[in-house]
């Protein structure tokens, strides 16, 4: 790879990089290509560790008409991802060794790394704990009932307590059902005018606060999924300052869309938690820019077209994220003023740590995700071209579904090249 800015653990450096036999073999200025080598000219581009998505709904098993592990992996590659964490709200939920093994096996047939988040409770019902220790033995490092939060405080405390010695991280979808009710958009004047029931910011914040208090009593580690409000971010920031092992993610859509997108009742903009006020969007962007957010995570949620061709309150929540996340993160970080180190931090190194694919700069087990771009490390690399302009074509997405809210939007910056496990899997935006 020549001509690019390399994003290393020690900052951005202008240098060439040689990959051989699946590992980064050499980094230095003006490397001479060997005879049998392919030279990727990446002038003006950034090269850093492959992106890691903490929050992908791959829909398999049970939702194969919306996405499969294979199609989700292809969408991930186009988006620059070399590792995805598959969410467990499949049908059936990933709550046993057999089901986790199935997803891991299918994932191993893709060119990238597919990790699995197991469910905290059996069938994600929020009642009886799922066999977390057995799943942890398969390498599961994250557990969540995502899609809904664990509503019962007693169950959540028990789960945190049980998970602590396993060394795994619980991840919570924070929305209190009793406050959410039948809500479908952000609670407030717009929802009232549209005649749509609201999901309040309070529903999220009250559970964030509750879980921080629970974690203080149990110890262990906890990740907050798709935070969407200014106050949630503040609560997590304070908990970190207190020394609690908490992490958080925000989604590209909560960073780039506000509730006004729902004013035409287009179900493509329906998502949980809902798109919030422009003030919340501003606060999320500011926190991201200041490095208070551990990860940008997609909450990639494919839905077959027919399911979105319904009335707003009847349509399922969720939108596609993998193929647009990098451009949107770049946008949220200010495009021309975007710090490439921070960019790779929230898309790769941060999420790799949360998912325990990496501790500090040492790979955990065989994983080499979110790495430091150092010689000897397995090559999982993503090149991002910050200058290219492109238009989102919903029909050209790799995902089986096409429920992107960004159709026809002009984006700046795009992933050009991905090397996964030492293999060139995306070149000039084209799957290899």
């Amino acid at each position, binding site marked *: 790879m020549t001509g690019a800015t390399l994003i290393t653990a020690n900052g951005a450096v202008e240098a060439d990089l040689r990959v051989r036999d699946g590992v980064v073999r050499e980094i230095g200025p003006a490397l001479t290509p060997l005879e049998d080598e392919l030279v990727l000219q990446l002038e003006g581009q950034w090269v850093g560790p492959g992106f890691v998505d903490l929050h992908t709904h791959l829909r398999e098993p049970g939702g194969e008409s919306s996405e499969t592990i294979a199609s989700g992996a292809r969408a991930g590659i186009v988006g620059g991802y070399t590792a995805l964490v598959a969410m467990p709200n499949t049908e059936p939920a990933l709550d046993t060794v057999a089901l986790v093994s199935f997803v891991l096996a299918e994932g191993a047939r893709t060119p990238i790394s597919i990790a699995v988040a197991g469910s905290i409770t059996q069938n994600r019902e929020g009642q009886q704990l799922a066999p977390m220790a057995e799943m942890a033995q398969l390498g599961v490092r994250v557990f969540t009932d995502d899609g809904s939060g664990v509503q019962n405080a007693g169950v959540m405390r028990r789960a945190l307590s049980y998970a602590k010695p396993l060394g795994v991280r619980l991840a919570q979808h924070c929305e209190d059902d009793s406050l959410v009710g039948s809500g479908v958009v952000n609670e407030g004047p717009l929802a*009232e005018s549209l005649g749509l029931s609201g999901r309040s910011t309070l529903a999220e914040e009250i559970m964030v606060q509750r879980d921080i208090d629970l974690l203080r009593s149990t110890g262990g580690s906890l990740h907050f999924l798709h935070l969407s409000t200014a106050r949630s971010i503040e609560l997590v920031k304070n908990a970190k300052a207190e020394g609690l092992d908490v992490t958080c993610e925000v989604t590209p859509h909560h960073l780039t869309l506000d509730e006004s997108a729902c004013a035409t009742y287009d179900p493509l903009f329906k998502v949980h938690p809902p798109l919030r006020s422009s003030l919340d969007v501003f606060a999320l962007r500011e926190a991201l820019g200041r490095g208070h957010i551990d990860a940008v995570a997609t909450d990639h949620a494919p839905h077959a077209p027919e399911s979105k061709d319904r009335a*707003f309150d009847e349509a399922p929540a969720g939108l596609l994220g993998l193929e647009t996340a990098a451009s949107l993160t770049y946008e949220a970080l200010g495009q021309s003023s975007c710090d490439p180190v921070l960019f790779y931090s929230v898309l790769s190194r941060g999420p790799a740590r949360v998912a325990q694919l990496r501790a500090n700069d040492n790979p955990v087990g065989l994983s080499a995700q979110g790495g430091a771009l150092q010689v000897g490390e397995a090559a999982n690399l993503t090149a991002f071209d910050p200058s290219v302009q492109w238009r989102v074509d919903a029909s050209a997405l790799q995902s089986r579904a096409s429920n992107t809210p960004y159709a026809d939007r002009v984006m700046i910056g795009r992933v050009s090249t991905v090397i996964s496990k030492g293999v060139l899997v995306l070149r000039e935006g084209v799957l290899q």
Partner: protein
Amino acid sequence: MIETIRGQNLLSLNDLSKDAIIEILNEAESFVEVNERAIKKVPALKGRVVASLFFEESTRTRLSFETAAKRLSADVLSLAVASSSVKKGESLRDTIATVDALGIDAVVLRHASSGAAEQVSRYVPHVRVVNAGDGQHQHPTQGLLDAFTIRQTLAERRGLDPIASGATLFEGLKVLIVGDIRHSRVARSDIAAYTTLGAEVRVAGPPTLLPQSVAQWGATLAPNFEEALRWADVVGLLRLQRERGTESFVPTLNEYTTTFGLTQERASLLKPGALIMHPGPMNRGVEVDSKVADGPQAIIRRQVSNGVPVRMAVLYLSIAGLGRAK
């Protein structure tokens, strides 16, 4: 801002100008006479096809719309969707596409989901869509017939020609709307119509049934219900929608009646000339006392009669002049 609904959809009253509303009310006046003839039919929409799609149970609005369409000589395709394709799992887009394939000029749509009419208007841009009530969002023809009924009644009393009066009878008119504002599409359409026409609107009800942002709709909260009754020229009562589970927003129905029902005692606080309205169907004994509902101040039956000429006006304006697509 929409200045006329000629050839346009009618989805909401929020974006209709005063002129657009007055145009509909005036057109409706001319159709009142048709409804008084022995042969109640004009050829205005002869050869046009109106599909009446009710995804939600309704007898009154549906009868009113279909009567209006037939009196304009339109062919009416009436589909009881609530009991057919939806239960078989068909998407909204497919249901509309199927009906559209039969060759239609307009859709009258009732749906339990807010925004359904706007979505349908995107699915079939060449078809005119008239919203006959979408979830908790809008019920535009109800708002129009309520405004029509107020103007007609006040004009009659003062010996004025309603058409010539334009919007003047609404200027400074004091309207109180009582009850479940939060879940009511009628309230949203009424408030839009009245405030656009120049009336002053206050709302009253239990706090759990009031929207927080009513000021942005151009209305204000009445701090004291009894005082507001003394203040009002028109009192619009809303149905406590027990079928939507709104009972859980108040402790008991009896307590609702005690605190916000228009009882005989409260009705005696009203100005002698004040009008009492209700979009129906009424919960007699809950939001309104039976005798009050049948009393001289109530114009509730007039509202029902006016539904037909107002809906004739809406269908006529919306469809006439519309070029055939394809």
